């Protein structure tokens, strides 16, 4: 058993590298696009001072629609778009496009929910001091919600890890794809278990780092 695993170790390492690559890139896109999107949803929601009815309906609907897609379907449905953006629909880099599209709305929605937890009194206090909208977002909303946002990033990272397993379908590679290829297609049960173990450990580590970060950032307790 051990020799079996040792034999494929280089391949596992390559697969892990691909997973981290997909995770890292997608997470970056999710944060950069999802945070402002979630913030906009929060700011223009019904009942807010900056409520924009039409824009809210459009963005809110869009977020819901994309979130309704199972990742596998989305991956295939947007192949033309993926080809348009990165030039190919196959390979690790190509997977980042559907991964990002899948995860951005989810990230945005969670950010919106986190911002809803921010005490509106603090926002009002900042307004009374003459803060402009940008200052309120930056100094009040993001500062007050920073632990919540760290939590969102943790949740999304773990979801992403699970999404990347489907990436094998379009040649994306990664640790999940590796598990399917060896464990399912070639009946190498020991290798599959070993890979699953790695994934479990990865999730534990991500969650642990996430929890610790939240604890450091949260000064409310």
């Amino acid at each position, binding site marked *: 058993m051990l020799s079996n695993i040792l034999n494929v170790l280089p391949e596992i390492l390559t697969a892990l590298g691909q997973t981290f690559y997909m995770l890292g890139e997608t997470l970056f896109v999710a944060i950069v696009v999802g945070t402002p999107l979630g913030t906009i949803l929060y700011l223009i929601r019904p009942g807010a001072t900056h409520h924009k009815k039409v824009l809210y309906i459009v963005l809110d609907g869009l977020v819901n629609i994309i979130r309704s897609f199972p990742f596998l379907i989305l991956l295939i449905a947007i192949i033309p778009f993926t080809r348009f953006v990165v030039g190919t629909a196959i390979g690790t880099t190509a997977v980042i496009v559907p991964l990002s599209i899948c995860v951005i709305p989810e990230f945005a929605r969670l950010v919106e929910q986190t911002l809803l937890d921010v*005490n509106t*009194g*603090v926002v*009002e*206090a*900042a*307004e*009374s*001091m*003459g*803060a*402009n909208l940008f*200052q309120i977002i930056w*100094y*009040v909303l993001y*500062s*007050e919600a*920073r*632990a919540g946002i760290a939590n969102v990033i943790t949740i999304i990272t773990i979801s992403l890890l699970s999404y990347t397993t489907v990436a094998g379908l379009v040649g994306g590679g990664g640790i999940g794809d590796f598990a399917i290829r060896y464990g399912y297609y070639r009946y190498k049960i020991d290798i599959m278990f070993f890979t699953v173990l790695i994934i479990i450990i990865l999730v534990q580590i991500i969650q642990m780092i996430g929890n610790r970060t939240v604890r450091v*950032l*949260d*000064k*409310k*307790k």
Partner: protein
Amino acid sequence: MIELKNIQKSFDTKDGKFQALKDVSIKIQEGEIFGIIGFSGAGKSTLLRVMNLLERPDSGEVNINGKNLCFLSRKDLLKERQSIGMIFQNFNLLSNKTIAENVEFPLKLAREKKSERIKRVAECLEIVGLTNKKDAYPVSLSGGQRQRVGIARALASNPKILLCDEPTSALDPRTTENILEFLKKINKQFGITIVVVTHEMEVVEQICNKVAVMENGEIVENFDLKEPITEFHSEIGEYLFKHLLNLEAKVDYVI
């Protein structure tokens, strides 16, 4: 000086339009501690929020130190707000920032230089006696201490006016007294005009020079507390101030 003229304000609610302020006019002189008292829902907090335009009135004038805030551009209004401090019932401190950072916040918003900020923060914390707490977070402070941070924060940008929204309603009686002492002190020491919205008579009695009584979106009484109260124009006025009444004076209803 704060001068509100014919302020109207209504809100859309599920049950239709709610008229929160009905043609309210009020004049507050420089250096006064002016109380606005009434039961909940009377419109007093809305009235206070009109003074720095957190609530924009449907009609009427909001003159602060000779400027009608309603006519200011957004940018000038934000600038003007920096000279109007505000404190709140629930303190509304930034929970992830230290006490010093909280007091520094308005100065940061005003883009003051770092060295100036540090100096001013130290001064303000000194005024409220919380220098030793500067690196603590709000969660570790008592309610009274948090309100003192609120006061220090409001003082940081050297305001001429301090608006207080139920500043002691979340505090116990002894802490209330302490906070009121601080308010009195900064009024005397810095000549800051203070407007206090409250439903507690003790607050009015302890610090206010003048008081307006509100009911159903209207001001129903105005008292100058330096003079004996001799007559009432409303039931609520009588209810609240009866015990301050000069007993020899004959009660005169002018309803």
